[in-house]
């Protein structure tokens, strides 16, 4: 793909170079994980920005290209495809952000400074505004007409939270040993699995969530 030239990743002090094709494949992976994970994953802001830049660069190239150049339509289709992956990725995030807004904002408040945020700055703004918008609607139409002592909206009670006990399909990228799949209960003993690269599993999301985040497994 001639259009995807080498790009330099500007984030981070040590210069990390990634080709645009690599960025795209990372984005595609993030996209699939996001699609299949029940909770919101860490925002890949860099990847998004990088691909957005790539798109506008390609668009400039197209404008410069000769009219009727056969390559133009191929490049255009490539842009469409990248844009689709980007939009679809951001859309699945947005759906979760709306659904879990209260919960995510709570988490964000509790987040320690050295932990990465799950939300990009833009998403954070959106989540805040959205949460406010929803609450004020409920308040205006219902809560404020209710008896005083039950007018409050207790997030503990009402916040919608991801169900981490859902089952997911996954493929193992790196050998990982000793994954605690099932805690010990009265009836059964604990269940521990060693995962080999290339294996595919179906299991509850909760025990593998950290592995998805680290990239050791991919959801499929």
């Amino acid at each position, binding site marked *: 793909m001639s259009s995807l030239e080498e790009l330099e990743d500007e984030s981070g002090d040590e210069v990390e170079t990634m080709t645009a094709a690599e960025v795209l494949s990372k984005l595609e992976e993030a996209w699939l994980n996001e699609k299949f994970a029940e909770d919101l994953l860490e925002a890949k802001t860099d990847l*998004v*920005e990088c*691909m*957005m*830049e790539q798109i*506008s660069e390609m668009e400039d190239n197209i404008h410069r290209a000769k009219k009727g150049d056969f390559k133009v*339509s191929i490049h*255009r*289709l490539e842009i*469409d*495809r990248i*844009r*689709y992956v*980007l*939009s*679809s990725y*951001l*859309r699945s995030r*947005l759906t979760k952000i*709306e659904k879990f807004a209260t919960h995510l904002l709570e988490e964000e408040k509790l987040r320690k400074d050295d932990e990465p945020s799950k939300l990009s700055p*833009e*998403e954070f*703004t*959106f989540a805040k*505004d*959205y949460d406010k*918008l*929803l609450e004020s*609607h*409920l308040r*205006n*139409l*219902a*809560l404020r*007409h*209710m*008896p005083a*002592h*039950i007018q409050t*909206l207790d997030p503990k009670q*009402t916040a919608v939270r991801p169900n981490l006990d859902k089952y997911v399909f996954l493929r193992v990228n790196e050998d990982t040993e000793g994954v605690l799949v099932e805690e010990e209960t009265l009836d059964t003993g604990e269940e521990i699995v060693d995962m080999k690269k290339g294996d595919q599993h179906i299991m509850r999301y909760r025990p593998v969530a950290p592995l998805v985040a680290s990239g050791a497994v991919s959801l499929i």
Partner: protein
Amino acid sequence: MLAEKALDLIRELERSVGGSLPPYNEDRVRQVLEEMRVLCEQNQKDVSATVAGESGLFSGVQVRHAALERNKRCLLAYLYNRIEQIKKMRWEFGSVLPTEVKYNLCEQEVQWFGRYNKLLANYMRSIGGCGGLDLTQDMKPPKTLYVEVRCLVDHGEFETQDGNVIVLKKNSQHFLLRSECEHLIRQGILEHIVH
């Protein structure tokens, strides 16, 4: 039984799943709030009586309190699930609602739609720094750059990216850039023809 009316609101939504949003049931909402007011009043009476020394009223207070909470849950769920539908409308109809659809929303819901629309637009504009990204487009993976379409209604003029003006008249056929007519297809103005 207590909180029956509130449950009616929920049933109303259940029945309409997949269909259109039923009209906002203002009367029923008012009745639920009224039931809550009465329950609360009785509880206050019982609480005062208990403070004054009367005993055994506690159970009644508990029952009524549970009913209050139940009413609250139903009412909020009613509003919440309507909002979910209204949000979906933004994605499916676009930023302008057909009047017949608007008719079933209450005043605050219409306002909410507008605010959500703005919120979404702001967010989409802010994506990736420059220019943003329209997330309501590209809903399906692109297969071709151009698509063959038939026009289903008299829509009028439509300006393409390169500045040309096309008249979209019922039953005319066109070959257009997929990216620029996708939203017209989703809004039912064009039909995508695949062979």
